């Protein structure tokens, strides 16, 4: 399912946070959204997922304007994984993943075989089947993130949005989560901080600065020495070690 954004503008009071962003993501593609702190990554992600309404511009999924799609119908197609979503409620892993079925169930409908299948395969996908009865509060950060992704998968979405899913995780879990996202048979849009991980796992990368889309393309086209210097204000060497088109960035401390 393709996602096409045209001329998105959004801000709070007088401050413009997203300025005239247009981009398109093809079916099955993994798009990385990068940019310095405060560049508008999270806001753009929420605009694309329909969680915020743009002041002007529009987002289309498979040619349909998402502003015209009711909230619940939208949630059957788009899933959103927040950064470090937490709760004090004593819920089990399974309870959390079951929440993903919310948009598919009406107020009185029972728990169907399709619901059960979606939850079971989502748990299987993130390798948490054996721990489905475990209380949320006893999970580590990486496990919580996996459960959130399982919940998003249980929504049976066609596009998945993830806001810095690797935050606070060790390098093993960062790679594990992103590999999982890349291998999903979904269109996914991921806001990321780590440039090397973005280069490794994304098909294309969009770079934001002060709400403006300043570069958009394949990792090797986007992650260049001048861009890193101008946008991220770092001196770095960019090398393409194994000719895969996935550059590696080595930062210089000067």
């Amino acid at each position: 399912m393709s996602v096409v954004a045209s001329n998105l503008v959004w801000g709070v009071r007088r401050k413009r946070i997203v300025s005239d962003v247009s981009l398109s993501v093809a079916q099955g593609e993994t798009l990385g959204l990068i940019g310095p702190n405060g560049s508008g990554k999270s806001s753009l992600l929420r605009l694309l997922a329909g969680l915020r309404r743009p002041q002007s511009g529009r987002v289309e999924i498979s040619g349909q304007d998402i502003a015209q799609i009711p909230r619940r119908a939208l949630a059957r197609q788009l899933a959103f994984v927040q950064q470090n979503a937490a709760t004090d409620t004593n819920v089990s892993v399974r309870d959390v993943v079951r929440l993903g079925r919310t948009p598919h169930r009406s107020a009185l409908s029972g728990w169907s075989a399709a619901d059960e299948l979606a939850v079971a395969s989502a748990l299987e996908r993130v390798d948490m089947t054996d721990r489905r009865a475990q209380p949320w509060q006893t999970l580590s950060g990486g496990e919580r993130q996996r459960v959130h992704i399982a919940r998003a998968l249980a929504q049976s979405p066609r596009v998945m949005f993830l806001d810095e899913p690797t935050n606070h995780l060790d390098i093993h879990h960062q790679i594990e989560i992103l590999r999982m996202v890349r291998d999903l048979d979904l269109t996914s849009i991921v806001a990321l901080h780590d440039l090397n991980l973005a280069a490794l796992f994304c098909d294309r990368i969009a770079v934001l600065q002060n709400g403006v889309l300043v570069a958009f393309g394949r990792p090797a086209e986007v992650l260049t020495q001048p861009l890193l210097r101008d946008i991220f204000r770092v001196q770095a060497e960019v090398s393409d070690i194994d000719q895969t088109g996935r550059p590696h960035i080595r930062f210089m401390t000067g």
Partner: protein
Amino acid sequence: MTPSDETGSGAGWLALFLVLVLAVLAFAVALATAIGDYSIGLRTVTLAITNGLGLTGADIPPIEESVVWDLRLSRALVAALAGAGLAICGAILQALLRNALAEPFVLGVSAGASTGAVCVIVLGIGAGSLSLSAGAFAGAFAAFALVAILSNGATSGPNHTILAGVAASQLFNALTSYVVTTSGNAQQARDVMFWLLGSFGGVRWPDFQLLCAVVICGLAICLWMARALDAFTFGDEDAAALGVPVARIRLILFAVTAMMTATIVSMVGSIGFVGLVVPHAARHVVGPLHLRLLPACAAVGAVFMVLADIASRVIVAQQTIPIGVVTALVGVPFFAIILYRSRPQT
């Protein structure tokens, strides 16, 4: 775990729990109608109730029949409904505000009701008990309206709403104190205090009918939205991402809880702690999912309140202790246990 987790064994267990609690409730109500200054045997109580329902035509002393049917039964049933309603409101607000300390009075409803009641008792706006309830109800809704406006029609986050509720409570409590200190005499001040602490004295069948309608409608609406409430587990934005119309659900449920709380408070005063403590207790037994939690809260809240009403009448002979004092005396130690058990494990 099986696909029938929600509809099968889990629901069966919940049904068993509810049947058990309802049996206890029936017994507690019978006990509440038997106990009093004029003590009546349980057999007579049962016969009087079945007579009243038209099921039997047993021959029992008319005075006893009248005491049971006209005075005590309506009181016990109002107590049960008030307990059920407050517990439901507490559970809803704890979920919507994502705050374990939320309770039915967090939106300022109780403080507003007090101001309304005080205006009637002290300033004598209107006269008679009907207008006392009407005054309390008007005050409660004024407070709720203020909170709704301060929190932008419930579109702001939970903490904003809680702060708005605190502000409204402070304002209306200050107004209450102002009216009592400037215009009240000692007797009126005592009346006000007694009213504030809650009392089931004087409730009759019409009160029961009104409360019954409000609580049942409220419970039905909340159950209808139970799945949406579950989706608030990880916050508003997460609920929105799961397809829940957050602002609409919030506003509807705030209005429903305010309506239930205002009706209860204007009828029996502001009875604290039931709405705070019962949802926590029920969550321990049936888990956090609202489709189970809300009926469990209703049942446990009803039992708790009927038992508290009995306690309020028997602790000191010939005297009724305000119900709010009893619920707090039971509620505070219970709350202390919750606090102790949920302390950070360091």
